[in-house]
């Protein structure tokens, strides 16, 4: 209900959100990250995609259209949050300032998050959630295949593990995209609308800057520009089977990788981080 209305408002409200500058805060720019620690920055980008998308999926818990899918979305959320936890722990070690994975997850503000904007958008209806997850999973498998072969052994180990999970996720979401697209008139229309809304945000997944280049050169990163056509192949195959039309490329929002986010991320973090901030050091 509120998800629907948030999605509906996105077009109009997103206009100003590419400027993530907060009065009094130091603007987050790519250069501040490069100068300091490109591997740390790159790891945050990898980790934050998973943390934010995992949290979004967890919002479905108890609300999915069928019980099996409620369980499936929660399972995928767990995998993504588990991967984020491992990557943030590694990032904290690389940074060398004693920040744990929990400190990085719960005590950074929106401007310090490095996820792509695609993953922070509200869940919308089930079609939006599934189409976004499919577009992400198809990308994620390619990311992790490459990271599993980097010389940084800790990162390669995490990626090899996560890759198995990502392939399983893709299998599941591709099947759902086929069912929704090639289903009823209603499910087709919703899936197509979801695809049209989300498509512009996929461009950011393939943008790389000097931070990424330095991390790749250090054996601790992935060059996301290198596999855009591979991703396109997978996506075209499944969307074709789903009888969905691929939208035209046009205006593409960007900025998440340097801390410029939509207004939705801040609201999501307010919820996600509230317990840790109200009760610092709380443990299960």
């Amino acid at each position, binding site marked *: 209900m509120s998800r629907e209305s948030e999605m509906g408002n996105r077009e109009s409200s997103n206009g100003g959100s590419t400027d993530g500058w907060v009065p009094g805060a130091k603007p987050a720019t790519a250069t501040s990250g490069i100068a300091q620690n490109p591997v740390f920055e790159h790891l945050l980008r990898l980790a934050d995609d998973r943390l934010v998308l995992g949290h979004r999926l967890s919002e479905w818990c108890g609300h999915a259209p069928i019980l*099996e*899918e409620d*369980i*499936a979305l929660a*399972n*995928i*959320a*767990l*995998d*993504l*949050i*588990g*991967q984020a*936890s*491992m990557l943030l722990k590694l990032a904290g070690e690389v940074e060398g300032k004693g920040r744990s994975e929990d400190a990085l997850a719960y005590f950074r503000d929106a401007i310090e998050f490095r996820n792509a904007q695609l993953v922070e958008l509200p869940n919308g209806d089930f079609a939006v959630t599934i189409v976004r997850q499919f577009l992400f*999973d198809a990308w994620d*498998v390619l990311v992790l295949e490459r990271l599993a072969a980097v010389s940084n*052994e*800790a990162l*390669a*180990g*995490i990626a*090899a*593990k*996560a*890759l*198995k*999970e990502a*392939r*399983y996720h*893709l*299998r*599941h979401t*591709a*099947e759902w995209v086929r069912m929704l697209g090639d289903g009823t008139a209603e499910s087709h229309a919703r899936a197509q609308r979801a695809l049209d809304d989300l498509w512009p945000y996929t461009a950011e997944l393939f943008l790389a800057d000097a931070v990424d280049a330095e991390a790749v050169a250090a054996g601790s990163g992935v060059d996301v520009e290198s596999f855009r056509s591979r991703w396109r192949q*997978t996506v075209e*195959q*499944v969307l074709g089977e789903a009888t969905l039309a691929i939208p035209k490329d046009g205006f593409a929002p960007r900025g998440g990788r340097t801390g410029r986010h939509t207004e939705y991320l801040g609201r999501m973090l307010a919820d996600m981080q509230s317990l840790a901030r109200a009760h610092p050091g709380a443990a299960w």
Partner: protein
Amino acid sequence: MVTVADSRREEILAWLDEVKDPEVPVLSIRELGVLRDVDVSGDEVVVMMTPTYSGCPAMHAMEAEVVSTLAQHGVPNARVKTVYSPAWTTDWISDEAKAKLAAYGIAPPGRVESDDLVPLRRRAPVECPYCHSVNTLVRSEFGSTACKAILFCNSCRQPFELFKAI
């Protein structure tokens, strides 16, 4: 030659066979492949474990159980070290352990080189652990735990779980 350290290691591994997966209580963490090794060379006993899935919520319970089990056997200074590489695979589960799974009503995982990790291809037929029919269908790729899927047998009309091959 069997050294003192070797026999100590074997002894500790045998004790850890008592620790079961809380979600699949017919398998020990050793049979599951979560228990990788034990290092007895230092002052403390270091137990190396690897998670099944990145977000497996049972890991903390298994780690706590490892420490308390060793404490009961007079090893007060045990510590768990989490290792991620090589990544856990269901291929580490022995045939004997797979038979235990089937007897418990969970269809055991096939070999990983089958279709499970080819995302856009369909999986080979799964045999029902109750009536052995292959006339089964996938109800959900995900089950009550991260490591299982939910299937249904059209022959004996019985739902069952499949231990996913990864």
